[in-house]
Each structure stands twice: as structure tokens, then as C-alpha cells.
């Protein structure tokens, strides 16, 4: 990757957004991870946080320590030097159990009606794909998974739920997402996993990384309850 292939913009006076110019890089997932590693490795004291998003890299900096122009030229230098030749992290594949029972798939009837697909078909479409983790964000541990089957494209709910239970898996736009905490949310809930993928007692709190692959396998309600109770033992 070269400096000419990226676009740098300011987000106010304390934030920077880096994206790939059109025509450069065909794998934003890999390229953004690479940029993240390049810049994170420098441990610049002016930078407060680095946040890899879907196809952008967000950077928060301390404007008392450096101004935008100075930081941009520092970043360009880092990217030009390419101190790491390739992204080093390996891609892991996670197999996550999901139960599509109506008790957990809170919107599954509605999804079936809206998409004019039988519940059986929409479950098949949902569990067939190999997803990629596009981003962790919005809320603690929320996973944005890309590569959703086109026939499952559905807008977010008009009125978000006040509380979506932990483990809920939803669809919205061209993504499926996992709520790893009880929280309000507008995604159409298709099922739930009994696994606890986010823990505030672990550091890092979530093992799944941006760029990893996720596949779902269907479980029945009794298996869901069994996994859940085994976890709490």
C-alpha cells in the first residue's frame, strides 16, 4: 500500500478518518487491518485511540499535543516506510451455535413475511454463509458480520427495541450482527447464541477479531439450554 492510495480527512479537531481511494485495494478488511497495525505499532503518544471500522480507520488524537497537519504528515511517513510488510495476524474461523426458535428469533415471523421467504429457507440462507467480521463497534462487543446472502437484505426496524437480549443475532442491510450485551437495538432479530462472546472480566474483552470468519450452526432449544447451563457451571 502506498500513501497515494489513501484518503485522509479530519473528523473535527481531534479525529482523523483514513479510507482507501476508489480503485485502490480490493480488500478493505485486510487493508484497514494492515494500516491499523502499522500505526498502532508506533505507539505515538499524541494518539489516544485507533478504531478500525468497516472500510475506514478512525484515529483519535490529543489536539493539545499535535495539530491535524502535523499528525497527517507523521502518518503518511509511517505508511510510506511500511515497517511491517504484511498483516501478521492470522484469520481465525469461529463456529457459533445459533437457535432460530421463535422464543429467541423475536422477529423471525416478521422477517419471513417481509422477505416473502419461508422460515425454513431464511434459516438456510442465514446459516449457509461464511461471514467475515467487518467491525466491532457501536456498543461493547457488538459484531458486524458481512457477506449476508442478498435475499436476506432487510432495513432496520422502524422502531428500535428498548431491550435486545444478550446473544441475540439480527439482520440489517447487508450484514448480520451479534448483540453481546443487553441493549436497545433496531436490527431484525433472527435467533440467539447461548455463547458469551464478550466478557468485561477478560482483557481483551472479546477474542473474535476484525477480519476473522464466522459460521453459524443451528441448534435446537434444548441444546441451547444445555450449552447455557454448562457455561454457568
Amino acid at each position, binding site marked *: 500500500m502506498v500513501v497515494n492510495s489513501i484518503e485522509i480527512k479530519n473528523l*473535527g479537531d481531534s*479525529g482523523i*478518518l483514513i479510507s482507501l481511494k476508489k480503485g485502490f485495494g480490493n480488500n478493505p478488511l485486510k487493508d484497514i487491518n494492515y494500516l491499523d497495525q502499522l500505526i498502532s505499532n508506533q505507539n505515538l503518544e499524541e494518539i489516544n485511540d485507533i478504531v478500525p471500522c*468497516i472500510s*475506514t480507520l478512525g484515529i483519535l488524537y490529543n489536539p493539545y499535543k499535535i495539530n491535524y497537519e502535523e499528525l497527517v504528515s507523521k502518518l503518511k511517513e509511517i505508511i510510506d516506510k511500511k515497517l511491517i510488510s504484511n498483516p501478521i495476524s492470522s484469520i481465525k474461523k469461529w463456529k457459533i451455535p445459533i437457535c432460530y426458535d421463535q422464543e429467541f428469533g423475536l422477529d423471525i415471523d416478521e422477517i419471513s413475511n417481509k422477505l416473502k421467504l419461508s422460515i425454513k429457507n431464511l434459516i438456510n440462507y442465514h446459516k449457509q454463509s461464511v461471514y467475515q467480521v467487518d467491525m*466491532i463497534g*457501536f456498543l*461493547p462487543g*457488538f459484531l458486524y458480520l458481512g457477506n449476508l446472502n442478498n435475499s436476506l437484505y432487510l432495513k432496520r426496524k422502524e422502531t428500535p427495541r428498548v431491550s435486545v437480549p444478550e446473544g441475540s443475532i439480527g439482520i440489517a442491510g447487508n450484514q448480520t450482527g451479534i448483540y453481546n450485551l443487553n441493549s436497545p437495538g433496531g436490527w431484525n432479530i433472527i435467533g440467539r447464541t447461548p455463547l458469551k462472546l464478550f466478557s468485561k472480566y477478560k482483557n481483551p474483552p472479546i477474542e473474535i477479531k476484525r477480519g476473522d470468519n464466522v459460521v453459524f450452526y443451528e441448534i435446537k432449544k434444548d441444546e441451547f439450554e444445555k450449552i447455557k447451563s454448562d457455561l454457568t457451571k
Partner: protein
Amino acid sequence: MNDYIVIQREGFYTTIQDNKRIGYKRYGIPESGPMDENSYMFSNWLVGNNLNSEVLEITYNGPKIKFTFNAKIAICGSLTNIYLNKIKIKMNQTIKIKQNDILDISSCKNGNRVYLAIAGKINIKTHFNSKSTYDKCSIGGYKGRKLLKNDKIKIIANEIDEVKKLPEILSSKFTENNLIRIIPGPEYNLLDQESKNKLTNGFFEIDIKSDRMGIRLCNNRIKLLNKINMESSLITKGSIQLPPDGNPIIIMSDGQTTGGYPRIGVVSKVDISRLSQIKIRNNIKFKIISLRESENLIKYNKNKFITNLGTIY
């Protein structure tokens, strides 16, 4: 050894906050930290703490606190009546507290929050590199939550002799100026001319639903040129998001880390503290400035802080 503060009345909403939680946004965990960063910093300076130390952030109505030890404290932020053993005391200066004294903080008058710093450390564990409370996920602070009646929190007190006063030039006058300077956001140009005019000519009311996550604005809906399906990207404290209903939300300390709504503007760093103190139902007005202008204001503030406080965080 037995140095505690004991909460005798909890007040509306008091949490422990330090500078902020750095390095965890990539896991979706917000930065938290004080809403009004300036008053927070001043309170720490008055008691000789590092400027990024933990303090109590007190919202709307204050708590009543008993001290079991001799302490030095300072309170900065919104004008508020504060009583020590029923005698009114001053804000913005170092206050000596004696064992068994009772500090009673009443309602914020011209702002939303006050900051109570105690010379020394609050003896709680750091969670993800910070003592800041993020109660939606029970992270940091005292048991991950707001302070409640009968909470007994251990303090590692620092003996200081110096008594300081906050220089007049630094004390905030919140209500006099509700003009907030903003820098155009990455999606500013999704607004048509009429909306751009409304953004800077109209008055926005601060909605009652505002909290540490965000300041919600109402009474001046802004329309987008076209409805777009935007990809989620970084949002920061001060980012002004425009949801489909047209009522902007300014992301604050506990705000989400990424968002999919257009970021039409970002509040200048120098106006965030003042903005955080503007009371619910009051009006604010935006003024657009360039990044360069905002950076000049930051430089001016930085010099002012360093001249008067000797340091900055």
C-alpha cells in the same frame, strides 16, 4: 488507614470519572470520562492531584457526604450551593475538611454538573486502564455504578498544605454564551442550502432525554438532501449525528464508538465543556468555524491553562 467517604444522601447521579478510557473503542467500549473536562481538570489542580486523576462527577442534585478523615477537597463546575456542616462554602478553591465533617452539595444552578476532587486517590481498581464509570456495562468506578446511599469508599489521602484559588480567568460563566462553535463534519455536504442555513441560523433546544451518552437537540429539524445508506464509521465526543427524524444528537462521553448516521458537524474541543453545562430546555446556536480556527482556539486555551495551572493533561 480508615479514610473513607460515606454517602449519606445519593443525589441524582454521581459517578467516579478519571481522564478517560483509552484504547478500548476498538472493542466497542466508549471512552467515558468527565463531561466537562475543564472543570474536572481545575478541581484536580486545586488539590494538587495529577490533572487526569479520578474525581466525583455530580449531576443535577448533589449528594451528602461524610468524611471520616482530614481531607483537602475542591469543587468546580456549575454554580451550586455547597455546605460544610451546614455552613456555606466557596467553590473553585481548596477546602479543608476535618474528620466527621459533612459536605452537602445541593442543586446545580446555572449548569448540569460539578466535580469534587479529593487530594489523593480514590481506592478503586482500574478497569480497562481507567477508573471511569461506564454503568451501561458496569465497568470501572465504584462497583461499576453510580454512588448509592451508604456506599463507603476508601480514599488514600494525600496531605497537602497549599491552599489554592482558581484564577478568575479560568472560572466558567456558563449561561452567558450559548453559541457553540462547530467544524463541518465529513457528511456536512449531504445537507442542502436550506438545511445548512437552519443549522447555523436556527436555535436548537436541549432535549430532556440528554445524558452522558449524548446531548439530544430538538425544535429545529434538519433535513438531508437525500436519504443515504451510510456505512458505520468512527464517532467522537462532540460529533453531531443526524438521525432520520432530523433531530441532531451530539455524542458525549459515554456515546457509542461508531455510528451510521451522517456526521454533519463536530463541536470544537474548546466548546465541549461549556456545551456539557448548558441546561435542559435551554437553546443553543451553532457557528461554523474552520479546522484552522478551532486549532488556534485550542492553542490559545492551552497557553492559558499552562500559564495559570503550570501544566495540562
